[in-house]
């Protein structure tokens, strides 16, 4: 009995050691990638990278990322390859269209703050008036409204507000105003409706006036859906 447990402990330790050397040494890192312009890009980047480095590519997430930039997740052994080396190699790979890829660095939104002159001009000539009206949410069947709202959101709003509502959609860098985190409205009560209704209908700064192209029913579906957007858990 004693002998058995000894062998057990030894073999357990051994297998633990083995496990450590093979798996526990690897780490997973995320790389924001510049230069992905086509389906061919996504393939070329991954296959060239695997040819050049002994790594494992977990996935390439094009649109549903925290920053709006495509993210490549790579598992590698830092004792063999450094993060710097991976970045260098990514920067050496050529896209089929001729340009090289690059690991994106820098702040989430690269646009500089407004300068004083702009701020001043915008108080004289800008979107200032907000004529909020009393509104009543006409929704009867909330579940189906929220479901419809989600589809419309993904099609029309996610490009700016992000698929998860974090404000960093793929195009959020392309204009002056940051679209904001919509999860501020999670579980908001009807007191928020006047404002939400107004801004979706009229737009403001770089928020488009959806009242032009989306019917009132659809806009209520969106309001109902926005109130279900939850801040994702930190990981």
């Amino acid at each position, binding site marked *: 009995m004693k002998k058995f447990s000894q062998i057990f402990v030894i073999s357990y330790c051994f297998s633990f050691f083995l496990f450590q050397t093979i798996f526990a040494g690897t780490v997973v890192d995320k790389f924001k990638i*510049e*230069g*992905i*312009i*086509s*389906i061919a*890009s*996504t393939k070329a980047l991954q296959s060239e990278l695997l040819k050049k480095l002994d790594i494992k590519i977990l996935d390439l997430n*094009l*649109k549903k990322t925290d920053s*709006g*930039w*495509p993210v490549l997740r790579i598992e590698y052994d830092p004792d063999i390859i450094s993060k710097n080396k991976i970045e260098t190699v990514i920067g050496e790979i050529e896209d089929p269209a001729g340009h090289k890829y690059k690991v*994106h660095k*820098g702040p989430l939104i*690269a*646009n*500089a*703050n*407004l*300068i004083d*002159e*702009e701020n001043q*001009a*915008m108080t*004289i*000539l*800008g979107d200032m008036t907000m004529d909020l009206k009393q509104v009543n949410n006409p929704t009867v069947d909330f579940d189906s409204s929220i479901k419809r709202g989600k589809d419309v959101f*993904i*099609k029309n709003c*996610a*490009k700016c507000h992000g*698929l998860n509502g974090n404000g960093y*959609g*793929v*195009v959020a*860098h*392309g*204009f*002056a105003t940051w679209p904001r985190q919509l999860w501020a409205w999670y579980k908001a009560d009807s007191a928020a409706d006047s404002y939400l209704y107004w801004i979706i209908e009229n737009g403001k*700064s*770089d928020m488009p006036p959806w009242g032009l192209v989306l019917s009132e029913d659809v806009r209520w579906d969106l309001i109902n859906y926005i109130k279900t957007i939850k801040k994702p858990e930190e990981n």
Partner: protein
Amino acid sequence: MAEKIKPPRIRVSRRIKKNKVFKVKVKFDHPSFTGLAMADDTTEPVFNRAKPVTFIRNMLVYYGDELVSRLSLSSGIADDPLFTFKLKATKEAPVKIVFIDNFGKRWEASKEIKFKG
């Protein structure tokens, strides 16, 4: 696309009469692109981010000391745009046009308005 950003250039009608409306054209060789691409158009949103963006953010028009117009812009504008708008010749004073891009860089040009005829 402009290789180098050149200072904006203003052109106005040759004959400007007092209290008449005249055209102002301003050309600004400044790159403007969305930085977007379509690597997978099967899921929404159909675009993905491919490059950092560059665009002109604001155009401010002063006539004399007065701010008379503001054009708020985005990367949905073409490279090296030519903007044309109108002004009423209320006074002999410079028209000054200021551009600010998304990096907060500022350019300006101005043109003296003198009445003729």
